């Protein structure tokens, strides 16, 4: 039996092509947080293709039980030790979200444990803060589905800037398809490796509007010029990846800097899948250094979607007295972080 001052949460995540299950413990008396297990299985599609909701949901259904079993085994906890079951409520793709929520509900009934539905973005941010020790940073949340500059003020997450169309990760992933780069381990990772060898800078559109950014025009443009430039040997795929990264990341760093200047913050935290890109991290660090500030970033264990962040954010909410009744344990594809607010500040 575990001591009374320790709370344990199980977290289930499947809002996109990553299926993750994690177990976390919080020691309420000391504030210590321990990650007991963090298991992930990714739905990888052939080069040149993306992942579709139906196939992704099928992948999650197929793998959830082995992943869950392993997470519990690695954590070494008994089912009676678990205090709360946390699942991703949204935002994300409908079918994959639902396939995982069903499992969370079933476990809740089977083991008679409370449920907490967690906002995926809050999961990323709270996990990032926990791992890095950042106190009240400006957050750049960049992934395949999200691009936002967020800061916390007056009991709510506030969005200072965001993409006006597609997410930055989506832009990178779709360009990877144009070049037929493998989706293993992830298209963004392979673009990053190519970009390291790029030398020639190809000028691309640059679209910053105040603190907002737009990527769809850049993607259309590079998609249209790439075949021609490559066939005439005017540049290499590496050069294109390099130029795309330099342009997109400069936009992200610029808007983040503006938000920092606006609210007078010296800390910046990068979360989300694109956040493990080392070039983005180093550009952000250079910016922060010029301002006398500091960058916090995490590695792929926490940047890329995972179950542990859902367990962590869910457990924080649970500790503040929040649970999701079974009849309200729905999913929602559009679940803006702006809606996470009063009553259960930060943690809805």
């Amino acid at each position, binding site marked *: 039996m575990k001591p009374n001052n320790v709370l344990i949460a199980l977290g289930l995540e499947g809002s996109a092509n990553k299926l993750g299950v994690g177990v976390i413990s919080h020691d309420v008396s000391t504030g210590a947080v321990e990650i007991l297990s963090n298991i992930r299985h990714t739905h990888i599609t052939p080069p040149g293709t993306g992942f579709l909701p139906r196939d992704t949901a099928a992948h999650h259904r197929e793998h959830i039980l082995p992943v869950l079993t392993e997470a519990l085994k690695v954590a070494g906890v008994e089912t009676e030790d678990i205090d709360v079951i946390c699942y991703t409520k949204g935002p994300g793709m409908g079918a994959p979200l639902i396939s995982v929520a069903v499992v969370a509900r079933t476990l809740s009934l089977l083991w008679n444990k409370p449920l907490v539905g967690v906002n995926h973005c809050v999961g990323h941010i709270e996990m990032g803060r926990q791992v890095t020790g950042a106190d009240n940073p400006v957050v750049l949340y960049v992934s395949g589905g999200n691009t936002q500059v967020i800061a916390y003020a007056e009991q709510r997450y506030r969005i200072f800037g965001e993409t006006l169309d597609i997410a930055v990760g989506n832009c990178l992933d779709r360009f990877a398809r144009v070049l037929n780069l493998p989706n293993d381990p992830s298209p963004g990772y392979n673009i990053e490796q190519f970009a390291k060898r790029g030398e020639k800078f190809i*000028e691309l559109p*640059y679209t910053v509007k105040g603190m907002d950014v737009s990527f769809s025009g850049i993607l259309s443009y590079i998609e249209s010029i790439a075949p021609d430039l490559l066939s005439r040997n005017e540049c290499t795929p590496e050069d294109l990846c390099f130029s795309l990264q*330099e342009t997109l990341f400069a936009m992200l760093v610029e808007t983040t800097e503006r938000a920092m200047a606006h609210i007078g913050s010296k800390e910046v935290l990068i979360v989300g899948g694109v956040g493990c890109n080392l070039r983005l991290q180093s550009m952000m660090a250079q910016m922060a250094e010029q301002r006398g500030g500091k960058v916090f970033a995490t590695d792929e264990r926490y940047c890329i979607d995972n179950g542990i962040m859902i367990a962590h954010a869910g457990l924080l909410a649970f500790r503040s007295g929040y649970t999701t009744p079974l009849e309200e344990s729905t999913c929602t594809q559009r679940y803006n972080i702006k809606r996470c607010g009063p009553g259960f500040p930060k943690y809805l």
Partner: protein
Amino acid sequence: MSKNLVKQGAEARIYTTSFLTRTAIAKERFKKAYRHPTLDKKLTDRRLVQEARCLVKCRSIGIDAPAVYFVDLENRTIYMEYIEGKTVNDLLADGSKITAEESDELARKIGEALAKMHAAEMIHGDLTTSNLLIRDANNSLAIIDFGLSFITTCSIEDKAVDLYVLERTFLSTHPHAHHLFLTMLKVYGESYDSGNSITGKEKKYGWLG
């Protein structure tokens, strides 16, 4: 030529200096170490020119703004008129005594100036109460810092966002003076043909979207 640093923003450093015997502001955009040099130069040059263009355009259509003395592309610097005055931010600061009449007068000035600017299809891009000055000499309202400005093609959206950015400053920094903003919106709507459709759009924005 001696330079005194007044302010460092996200994009530029502002100095006071002298230019052909006049007191002047030198606004120097600094190099961004994180940005690829080609991209950095392209952006800086474009924004520098854009800023100078908007300042000159303001003056030519009768909006009070700093006069441009010289644009030094090589050193990424614009030399402009130094305006002696108080920012609206200072005027509204806690403890300042502003009467209801003065407040209405201020709102009217801001509303009229912004309407004139938008009628000329100019978007300021960074409207805050710190970027609005009242000249000591003649109490005229001057708009400063066109660093993020641009000329729009048609968009009601851009203009509404411009006003919305200003409203956010009022909400966060001068919550007690929100009525001033609302009076300003009314004047703006009345002094500009498509003004009311823009203020209507502006009201649709809001923290909770």
